[in-house]
Every structure is written in structure tokens, then in C-alpha cells.
């Protein structure tokens, strides 16, 4: 077990460096350099620019620049925003909470709704109810999050006027929980609905498999009540495959929130990302990528460990 954890952690760290390398080299390909701003100053002499360039390490090969940047990163310094001149760490950490609140609510919601619906669908396979639910699940998993968000705004904010159409808090500046929840409902559903469809389909197909197992028949033969068979004997054994789909869908949901945040004007990393790309603020883009990479890899590592804990057979592979 501990061997397995060490191996998984090592892999996650390697992947983390891979991601930072990929994003770093990609951003060095970008047109324009930090020196452009200096060159625009007419008082700048050529010697001065060369001196500044050496100071920033820009005269060195790219891989040396990368290690320099990585060294700074490990000391908690991610550079300064090109546009606001504030430390990247401050700008990014301000926004991360908003994105996490949104994605975590969406994940919780998609499992709370998706699991029972998937179980119901699996109990009478190939019935009309199952057919309708499976089709709906398929349609839900293919709807673009931004269109879903706009439809939700149109129905619930514009027509029914029961929920706010955007932002995280009221204009009044009140920051209580109730206000937050009201603002959270629509964007959460916009991210969760496609995920609900996926969870339903996974739960259904895993349940169908488990329900034919001998231990389920045995439980029934022993006179265990039907809901006991379904929940305790069957569903519990589908939990492990369901955990594995989580690690695949987490990065996908973070990606989905980038787009949905834009629709709802949610002040998270997604909105920051789009604004930074428009203004070519590469230090911020790098900062967001690093933070997202850490969050995603740490979550997946935890899921892997949990998975091994629940099913010790996995560590032998």
C-alpha cells in the first residue's frame, strides 16, 4: 500500500512538472516579450535594454529560463501581472475560492441527482421508464454548458424572475450565505447537468452488471428486503467504478466552469483566464495553469489512494 502511494505521488509530481513545462514553453512561443513595454519608453537606451534583459534572464536559453521560473515558483513567487502589476499569487488566490465553490457544488449535485436516477433506471432495464431516462441522460451529457446557462438565465431569471442572472453576491455588497446560494444555483446546474447524464449512465451500467451477480441472488434467496439488496448488496459494489470516473471528469468540470463562469459573470479563475488571454497577461495565465494543475493532480491522487484503500487488489497491478 505505502509503495503504491509513493509510486502514485511520484507520478503526480512528474505530471505536474510536465504540465508546467508544457505551459511555460507554450507561453514563450507567444508573440511579444516582457521587454516590449521597456522598448516603448523613448528614454531607454540600447545598453539599458540589454542590461534589463540580462537582469530578467531573458538572454539565457529557454530551458534555463524555465528552471529559473520553477525555482521562483517553488519559493512561492509566480511573478507579476503585466496589466495590474500585482503579484500573480495574490491575483490568482483571490479567485480560486469562487471557482472551487462552483465546481465542488456542481460535483456534489451531479452525484446526488445522478446516482439515484441511475439506480432507478437500472431496476427495470429496457422498460419505457429506463428508455426515457437513458435517452435524457444521453441528451444531458451533450448539451453545451454555455447554452444551458443561457437557457437557465432566460427561464429562471428573465421569465420566472426567481433567481439572479449573474455575479456572486448582490450589488448591495452583502456577503451572507443565502445570497451566495441564490447566485450559485443556476451556474451550478449549468455545469452539473451534463455531468448528471454521465453519472446516470455509469451507475446504470454498473448496477446492471452487479445485479446479476451470485451474491445478489443469494441475498434475495435469504429473504433480504429488496431495497436492502439494491443498496447494501448491489450499489455498494458499484461505488468503486464510480470513483474512477470522477478522476476523469474533474478536469473536465473545471474546464466547463471556465465557460460557464463567463456566462454568469462569476468572479472565478475562468473569468480571470479569459480576461488575461485577451490582454495577453502571460504571468497570470501561467499562474492559473499551475494552480489548476495542483488542484486537479492533488484531487486525482487522493482518489487513487481512496480507490486502493477500498479495493486493495488494485495495488498489486
Amino acid at each position, binding site marked *: 500500500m505505502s509503495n503504491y502511494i509513493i509510486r502514485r505521488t511520484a507520478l503526480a509530481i512528474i505530471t505536474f512538472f510536465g504540465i508546467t513545462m508544457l505551459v511555460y514553453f507554450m507561453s514563450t512561443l507567444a508573440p511579444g516579450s516582457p521587454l516590449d513595454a521597456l522598448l516603448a519608453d523613448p528614454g531607454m537606451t540600447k545598453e539599458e535594454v540589454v542590461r534589463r534583459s540580462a537582469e530578467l534572464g531573458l538572454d539565457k536559453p529557454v530551458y534555463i529560463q524555465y528552471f529559473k521560473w520553477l525555482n521562483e515558483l517553488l519559493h512561492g513567487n509566480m511573478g507579476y501581472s503585466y496589466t495590474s502589476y500585482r503579484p500573480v499569487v495574490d491575483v490568482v488566490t483571490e479567485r480560486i475560492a469562487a471557482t472551487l465553490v462552483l465546481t465542488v457544488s456542481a460535483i456534489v449535485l451531479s452525484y446526488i441527482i445522478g446516482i439515484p436516477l441511475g439506480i432507478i433506471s437500472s431496476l427495470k432495464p429496457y422498460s419505457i421508464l429506463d428508455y426515457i431516462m437513458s435517452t435524457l441522460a*444521453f*441528451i444531458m451529457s*451533450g448539451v*453545451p*454548458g454555455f447554452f444551458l446557462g443561457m437557457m437557465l438565465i432566460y427561464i429562471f431569471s428573465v421569465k420566472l424572475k426567481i433567481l439572479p442572472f449573474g455575479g456572486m453576491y448582490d450589488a448591495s455588497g452583502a456577503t451572507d450565505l443565502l445570497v451566495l446560494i441564490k447566485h450559485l444555483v443556476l451556474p451550478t446546474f449549468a455545469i452539473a447537468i451534463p455531468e448528471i447524464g454521465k453519472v446516470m*449512465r455509469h451507475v446504470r451500467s454498473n448496477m446492471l452488471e452487479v445485479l446479476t451477480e451470485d451474491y445478489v441472488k443469494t441475498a434475495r434467496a435469504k429473504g433480504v428486503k429488496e431495497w436492502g439488496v439494491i443498496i447494501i448488496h448491489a450499489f455498494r459494489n458499484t461505488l468503486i467504478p464510480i470513483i474512477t470516473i470522477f478522476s*476523469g471528469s474533474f478536469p473536465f468540470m473545471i474546464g466547463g466552469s471556465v465557460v460557464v463562469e463567463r*456566462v454568469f459573470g462569476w468572479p472565478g479563475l475562468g473569468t480571470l483566464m479569459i480576461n488575461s488571454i485577451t490582454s495577453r497577461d502571460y504571468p497570470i495565465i501561467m499562474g492559473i495553469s499551475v494552480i489548476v494543475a495542483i488542484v486537479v493532480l492533488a484531487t486525482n491522487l487522493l482518489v487513487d489512494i481512496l480507490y486502493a484503500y477500498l479495493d486493495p487488489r488494485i495495488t498489486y497491478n
Partner: protein
Amino acid sequence: MMVNNKNDNIYSSSKKQSYFRDVAKRFVNHKLAIIGLIILTLLILIVTFLPMTMKLDPYTIGRELPYSGPTKGLVLGVDNAGRDNFSRLIYGGRVSLLVGLLSTGISVLIGIPLGIVAGYYGKTIDAIIMRIADIFISFPSIILILVLVSIIGPSMWSIIVIIGIMGWPEFARLIRGNVLSVREKEYVESAKAIGVKDSEIILKYILPNSVAPIIVAATFRVAGAILQESSLSFLGMGVQPPQASWGNMLYGAQSLTVLTTKQWAWIPPGLMLVITICCVNFIGDGLRDALDPRMKI
């Protein structure tokens, strides 16, 4: 040898026929897949031929005042620059389908050779390729795509290439898994033993075994690519006006006034996206059931 070969062919061709008949039968039985196939075929015919027969004009600006409502000649009204929304809807369909198909083609062309090399030669090269695949898979691809778009610049062709490049790991993983399982089979070992070249083993023994799962994965990938293009265009980082795309037709509806009062401008392209993506997914599901009944979900 000759006689044997001939017999082999007779045997395999009759077996092939019944295999394809089974596949077709299972696909036809999948009602949603058939509905998806009919709608998608209609859609392809419409976006291909309607512009020619109706002389649609998606580019002329100022046909009416910005965001004017539907009239007899302009059934879906006009957009922010006074361009005909209906023509743009049809031309947008061309973009979506083109991006979906071409970028998936690129992903397959990159993923398959890398997956084969990783699976067949194993060891270090396998570790390196699969690590890189992990990097791509464990990171939200929309972020990498946005960074790349900001560097290369947004246009339909750059979007096709970028989405195509980002989609390779799925195919590499899939085919690598297949190679690993086929590599150990006796017939591959015996082919190796009699000195058949690596390239021939890969083409004759390994690839045919992977065709079915690749077709299924590619179908789902087309839907994924259409979704990614529309998201990018919606964010203003994809297909740029005046060129029409369903995603960029929704861009204007980020303003609350348009969202609230100009439904004809943004609901039709959104619905077309949902219908197209669903149809492609239904076809993918039908193909999965038909080609490999053992595959799940």
C-alpha cells in the same frame, strides 16, 4: 501455400460477411442511432446544398437594423451587424461539422502512430509517450486550447489544428491497450518467429483488431470537438466573424438585452448545437453496441 491462402480467404470472407451483417443488424436495432443517423444525414445535405439552391448570403451587413426581428425574407432576423441569421445558421453548420470531422482526423492521425509505437516497443518510449498523454488528459484541455489560441490567433483553421492536436491521447491510450493485448497472442508470436517485419505485423495483425474501438471513439470525439469549437467561438476565441459559427452566433447573447429580448438570434444556433451533438453521440452509442457488444456504457 497457395491453396491454403485461398481457403483462408474463402473462410474469412464468409466470416466477414456475417460479421458485417451482424453489425448492421445490431445498429438498425438501435432506434436512437437510426434517428441520429437520419437527422445528421439531413443536416449534412441541408448545409451542403441549401446555400447553392437558395443563394443564401451570410455576409452582407446592414440588411436591417442590428438585431431586427424575423420578417418574411429574413426568417430569423438579423445579427448585430445586420447579417441574415438564417443564412448564418446554415453556414455555421458547415463550420461545426468541418471542425468536428477534420480535427478528429488529426487526433486519430497523431494518436494511432504514437499508441502503436508505445505499445509495440514498450519500455522507455512507452513510458515517455504515456506520461505525455497523462499530462494532456489530467489537465483541463480548454485551458491549453485557450493558451494556444492566444498564441496562434483564432480562426477556423487554427481551431481545427489545435483541437486536433489536443485530442490525440485518447486514441493513443486506446490503441496502446489493444497492441499490448494482441502482441502476446500466439499468431503474432509465430509471425515474428518466421521473420515477418514489424511494420507488417502492425498493419496486418494489430491495426485490424483496433478498428472497431477507434471508430467508436472517433465518433464520440467528433461530438466533443464540435462542443469545444462552439465554446471557443462563444468566448470570442474561436471562429471569427464575419465567418459564421453556431458558437459565435451566441456570442452576442452574452449581453442581457439580447438574451432577454432577441431570442430568435441565439436560441436557434444553440438548439442546432444540441441536436447535432446528440445525433453524433447517438450514432456513436449505436456503433458501440453494434461493433463490440462487450463494451459498456
